[in-house]
């Protein structure tokens, strides 16, 4: 649990900082900072001991991340990631639109950590540190945005799916597994009231100079039918990126990524992330060969690819969960990522449980807003209570989901 540091914690924080950073803040500086309302000093405590902290300061529309320190014995457990995400969310609530930080030029691990979390190198400060080492300055925008995006392209791609490419001014970038809410069809001068609600769609990939996104979709109802009619230059309302995506994969991770139907679109970014630091096999299922989406992009990654169709027109004849069972039996230590129809995700979660494998799913409940206010997308969790698919998900550990009540 992450909580605000108390005055009594400062001594422990200073020691932890000094043990990890050659130029960590001293006790007096920390005490001064903590007294300021624009400073965020939050700690992770385990059995009374502080095992990590984040120190950040908000200034106008920017947040500067000064320090994130994790005790050596607790590293590589996701604490740094959680502290950073916590600080960025708090800064976003306080009105920050971008985040900035400095990293030692020689600290490849830290550079990669921030790059994976959408920070981009923006400059270098020569001999910034007392040791004479350079600092790399990095920054990222804080989402989400609400804009009228411009349709760059919108066409069938030879499958039953379509590709919608949008230019989204101010797009802050998305983590794998995040989504956007799209207006149902192009925006009209007088706001359209029917169909009324925006549609949640996974961000398939980012293109252009980082301000274009591609959406893979199928015409499945009135909203998507209208969307298919949007031509180049038309405007589509976008709110995003939204939700918590997949956590960055562990070094050397083996992953089985299972996609069904348009759920496939949620997995491309994570498949690429696993491929860059571990070993990924992507398993895609559909009714028939023409329903398999995104094959070209998955083939271009350094991943294994297995297909299944219900009519046998491509790959295994049957459900994709059958090849998944075989793959899990061969590599029970693999992490399973699944996104697709609920029965497919439920079956994947069950198979993973049988093999004691970790399974992560990306849920697709209906929702009206996408940012945690309509409460329509609540997913029942094991042990009672709900998680909001839009805010707490869409990515959930499958073992926490109450599959029997998911609808």
């Amino acid at each position, binding site marked *: 649990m992450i909580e605000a540091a108390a005055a009594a914690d400062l001594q422990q924080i200073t020691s932890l900082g000094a043990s990890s950073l050659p130029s960590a803040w001293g006790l007096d500086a920390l005490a001064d900072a903590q007294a300021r309302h624009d400073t965020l000093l939050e700690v992770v405590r385990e059995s009374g001991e502080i095992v990590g902290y984040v120190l950040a300061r908000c200034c106008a529309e920017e947040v500067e991340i000064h320090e994130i320190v994790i005790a050596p014995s607790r590293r590589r457990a996701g604490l740094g990631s959680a502290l950073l995400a916590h600080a960025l969310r708090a800064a976003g609530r306080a009105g920050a639109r971008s985040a900035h930080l400095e990293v030692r030029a020689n600290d490849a691990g830290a550079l990669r950590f921030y790059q994976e979390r959408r920070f981009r190198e923006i400059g270098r400060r020569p001999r910034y540190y007392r040791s004479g080492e350079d600092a790399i300055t990095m920054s990222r925008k804080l989402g989400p945005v609400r804009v009228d995006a411009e349709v760059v392209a919108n066409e069938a791609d030879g499958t039953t799916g379509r590709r919608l490419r949008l230019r989204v001014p101010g797009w802050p970038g998305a983590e794998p597994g995040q989504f956007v809410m799209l207006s149902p069809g192009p925006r009209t001068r007088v706001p359209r009231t029917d169909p009324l609600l*925006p549609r949640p769609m996974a961000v398939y990939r980012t293109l252009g100079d980082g301000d274009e996104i591609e959406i893979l979709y199928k015409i499945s109802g009135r909203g998507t039918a209208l969307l298919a009619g949007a031509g180049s230059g038309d405007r589509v309302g976008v709110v995003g990126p939204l939700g918590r995506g997949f956590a960055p994969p562990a070094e050397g991770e083996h992953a089985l990524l299972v996609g069904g139907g348009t759920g496939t679109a949620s997995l491309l970014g994570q498949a690429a992330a696993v491929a860059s630091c571990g070993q990924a096999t992507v398993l895609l299922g559909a009714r028939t060969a023409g329903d398999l989406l995104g094959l070209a992009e998955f083939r271009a990654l350094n991943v294994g690819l297995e297909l299944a169709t219900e009519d046998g027109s491509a790959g295994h004849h049957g459900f994709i969960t059958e090849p998944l069972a075989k793959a899990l039996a061969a590599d029970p230590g693999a992490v399973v990522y699944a996104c697709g129809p609920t029965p497919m995700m439920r079956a994947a979660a069950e198979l993973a449980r049988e093999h004691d494998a970790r399974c992560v799913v990306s849920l697709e409940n209906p929702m009206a807003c996408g940012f945690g206010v309509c409460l329509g997308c*609540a997913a029942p969790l094991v042990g009672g209570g709900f998680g909001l698919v839009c805010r707490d998900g869409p990515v959930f550990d499958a073992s926490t989901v109450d599959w029997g009540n998911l609808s």
Partner: protein
Amino acid sequence: MSAAVDTCVDLGGIALRNPVLTASGTFGYGTEFAPFLDLTTIGGFVAKSLTVEPRTGNLPNRIHETPSGMLNAIGLENVGVDAFIAEKLPEIPDGVPVVASVFGTAPSEYVEVCKRLTGVPKVAGIEINASCPHVKAGGIEFGQNAELLAGLVRECRAATSLPLLVKLSPNVTRIADMARVAEAEGADGLAMINTLQALDVDLATRRPVLRNVLGGLSGPAILPVALRMVWQASQSVAIPICGIGGISTAEDAIKFLLCGATAVQVGTASYLNPMAAGEVAAGIEAWCAEQGVAAVRDLVGGLELP
């Protein structure tokens, strides 16, 4: 543009910089909108209905899209009044009037929540959500029975010195009667309308689309019904009315003002466009400037009858 338009209104003792609030249940606790909307550009907001204890809400499906609207049966999921005061209110910028919506299954629960909110900084007023089943009275909504409503308003009035708005249920035969009851028991204003009770069916399964069977209909589909009810109520009471029901644009809001509303709440539209309330507020001001209206309050009740 001519001289600046005076957009201030007084909603039963709640001073608003402009007449646009956001409706309870569609705006969370305000913090969710920080990335999209500067809360100081709207009149204020009505927080999600609060109960004495936290509630977790209904099993899915909880929402369903309908022609120009949506059904919901969320089940009044909320963090509880104490967590709202301790954790949510401090996140709201100063100078943003917060109206706390209050809810319970017995009058004593409403009273308890009202008491805990009274005197809390930033809470500018209370809105009584009367569209709640009264458990002891067999589950009929407080707002559907004049005697139940009278008793509820009387007890809440005695429990708080804050400006008290009563949010009326539209699921009644004569809305004006309910408006008069609330006024007689000391309400400072009315908020109307809540959602219309409704049902839709999934033909594939022959089941109701919502797990709760019945839900509340909101969105542009209900706007003309809401306008009618606001107009009827405004003919019957002297206390100010906050108009609610399908407002997405400044034009929609101005119709409510002409039908007798002093202020309005934007609801479902915030789901589609989290900046909607800010755009409605700016649009009303621009419309007034264009039409030569000096003060927004001059529009209230200005409906020209044939």
